[in-house]
């Protein structure tokens, strides 16, 4: 049985290499919230390699540090699906302790996974190896964003209805600071140097830049796009360029990705993409940025240097999350 699995893995890997024409093809995993599937996209050929059925309402995803495993939150099934990133098979499924897992992050050692349980105000910490529960931490109403600090000492969780970013000490598993941000915070992300945490507020239409050590808001960014009504500006996903000098913020129903200079905090450009970009990720050298567009059911490729949208590729229905295995 084990032998068979190895053969299948090797076969699938060579098939992937064959399809993409090169062995080192990057793969994007896109969670299709309405289809209950993960689209596996070859990001060089921009071709769908496979569509994998998973649990109901898949949204947040995270890769293990060794990139061999993809963890997928299936909210309506209250479970975490685990995918082998070479064979694209679901290798195991863990029932989550809390209901409705939405987003998650993993520490850099690959030991613990932090999951936002949207329905009950909890962060569940599980052991990555076997899915067993390490503990639960009560935060605000409707937890969502989750970000482990670069030094693995803090995890920042956001709660949408409470409008806060909660700083949780990983060792003691206790909340050590609560920062009130704008309405409906969705995503938290550490800047590459670990000094700042960027928290997007979907309804507030802003990004709060939090000083990671003082745990205070040092800057509040808003977006003004001529011809686009302010209520359509819904900041969601955030990513930083390789040198950390540019931040990319997906603006939801404004159908754009904002480019922010991280030195001046000024928005320098808006890139028109598909409809309602939510989560984003880069290819290996961070020269291309990919956005999951919920309402147009596609993924847009942005050239980072020229800040231009190059192409959109159809995926499943209501694409939500996007994670790239370089």
């Amino acid at each position, binding site marked *: 049985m084990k032998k068979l699995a190895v053969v299948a893995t090797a076969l699938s890997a060579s098939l992937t290499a064959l399809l993409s024409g090169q062995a080192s093809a990057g793969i994007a995993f896109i969670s299709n919230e309405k289809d209950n599937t993960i689209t596996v996209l070859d990001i060089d050929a921009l071709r769908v390699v496979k569509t994998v059925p998973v649990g109901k309402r898949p949204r947040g995803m995270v890769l293990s540090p060794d990139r061999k495993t993809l963890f997928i939150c299936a909210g309506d099934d209250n479970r975490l699906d685990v995918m082998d990133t070479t064979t694209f098979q679901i290798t195991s499924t863990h029932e989550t302790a809390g209901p409705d897992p939405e987003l998650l992050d993993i520490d850099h050692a690959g030991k613990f996974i932090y999951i936002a349980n949207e329905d009950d105000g909890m962060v569940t910490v599980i052991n990555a190896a076997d899915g067993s529960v390490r503990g*639960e931490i*009560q935060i605000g109403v409707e937890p969502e964003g989750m970000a482990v600090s670069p030094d693995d000492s803090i995890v920042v969780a956001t709660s949408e209805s409470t409008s806060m970013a909660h700083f949780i000490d990983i060792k003691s598993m206790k909340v050590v600071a609560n920062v009130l941000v704008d309405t409906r915070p969705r995503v938290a992300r550490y800047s590459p140097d670990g000094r700042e945490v960027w928290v997007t507020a979907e309804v507030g239409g802003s990004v709060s830049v939090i000083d990671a050590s003082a745990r205070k808001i040092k800057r509040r960014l808003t977006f003004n796009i001529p011809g686009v009504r302010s209520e359509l500006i819904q900041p969601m996903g955030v990513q930083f360029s390789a040198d950390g000098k540019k931040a990319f913020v997906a603006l939801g129903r404004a159908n754009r990705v904002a480019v922010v200079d991280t030195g001046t905090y000024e928005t320098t450009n808006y890139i028109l993409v598909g409809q309602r970009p939510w989560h984003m990720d880069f290819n290996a050298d961070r020269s291309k940025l990919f956005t999951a567009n919920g309402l147009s059911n596609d993924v847009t490729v942005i050239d980072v240097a020229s800040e231009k949208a190059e192409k959109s590729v159809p995926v499943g229905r209501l694409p939500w999350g996007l994670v790239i295995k370089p």
Partner: protein
Amino acid sequence: MLAFFLPLLTLPVRSDDAPAGSTGAALDVKIAYLGKSYAEVEPLSLVDKVFTDKGIQGARIGLVEDNMTGRLIGQTFRLVEAIIPESEDIRPAAVNILKSGVSLIVADLEPTDLLEVADIAEAHNAIIMNIRSNDGRLRNDQCRRNIFHVPPDWSMRADALAQFLIWKRWKRWGLISGAQSQDKDYADALHRAAKRFGAEIVGEKLYAYVAGSRRTDTGHRQIQSQMPVLTQNLGNYDVIVVADVGENFGDYLLFNTFEPRPVAGTHGLIAVSWHRSYEESAATQMQNRFERKTGRVMTERDYSAWLAVRIFGEAVTRTNSSDAGTLREYLISDKFEVAGFKSQGMNFRRWDRQLRQPILLVGPRALVSISPQEGFLHPKYLTDTLGFDEPESRCQQRG
């Protein structure tokens, strides 16, 4: 060493102690839920159950959420529940609450009782959240400085429907209304909406016959012959608009109209702030939370009460104050914003203290659309295309 640490890693820890980051003095905030157990209108359809705890259940869940936020920053919220029999006078109960120092009130009251409470001397500086009445008079001639309105009134609902019907190019309406006063209010709002958005009411009939019971054996035979007659000679209509708040005949119009036309208004396609079929913008989480806690579906009044308690919580959290004057200033300012699963922040109109909000248009089984519709523009808020805008408002007590 390893042996010592291992059990720590395998034993699940539960951390729900209060937390860090609470600065300043602790705040203890009391919110009163003041209501009467009015007789509930029985829905025509037996599919819809009669609930006698609409509203209060939403408020209780809102309170839990306020406290989940509050406990992180040293704020405690309490709900004082006062629901009295319909036959009793509301005044003593209200005075009691106000004299005990509670000035944040969620009012589950019909207009007469609501105004009586608002006009009590001690209520002068209170904040009263209307969560029940759709009556347009409370937002216009009878508006009060201390009343805020959470549910959309009849005019907002009629305008939300009208925008959609215009978008569909169903511009000729046949209007059928019941004989009760609220039916007339909604019919008036539909007349106003037709005029505002360019529809025409090509025929109008009053349906005064009161069937009496939602349960009649072989009743469908009567319905099948009566409804076509009712919808005949109404002109060349694209759609029947119905105003039957009292639940006497509205549902019977569907598939029984003389002409093969859709039905909208209080039945068929309805304009509401909440519905079980609604799932967008994280509404699913709210629906699940509510059903898990109460064992029944969340109604519009539950949503209004939940939102009212969340509005108080949001204002207290952001201002770090429980003073009614401070909270009132904040609530009518541009800074205030509350999220209610409508994909945009909601705030109050300064001129009549009505909550701005998108309105759901729902068929019997599923969401059809959300108004305001594309193309209905407003210089400030698109949602101000629904209901009475500032120049039209007859509210004298503004701001």
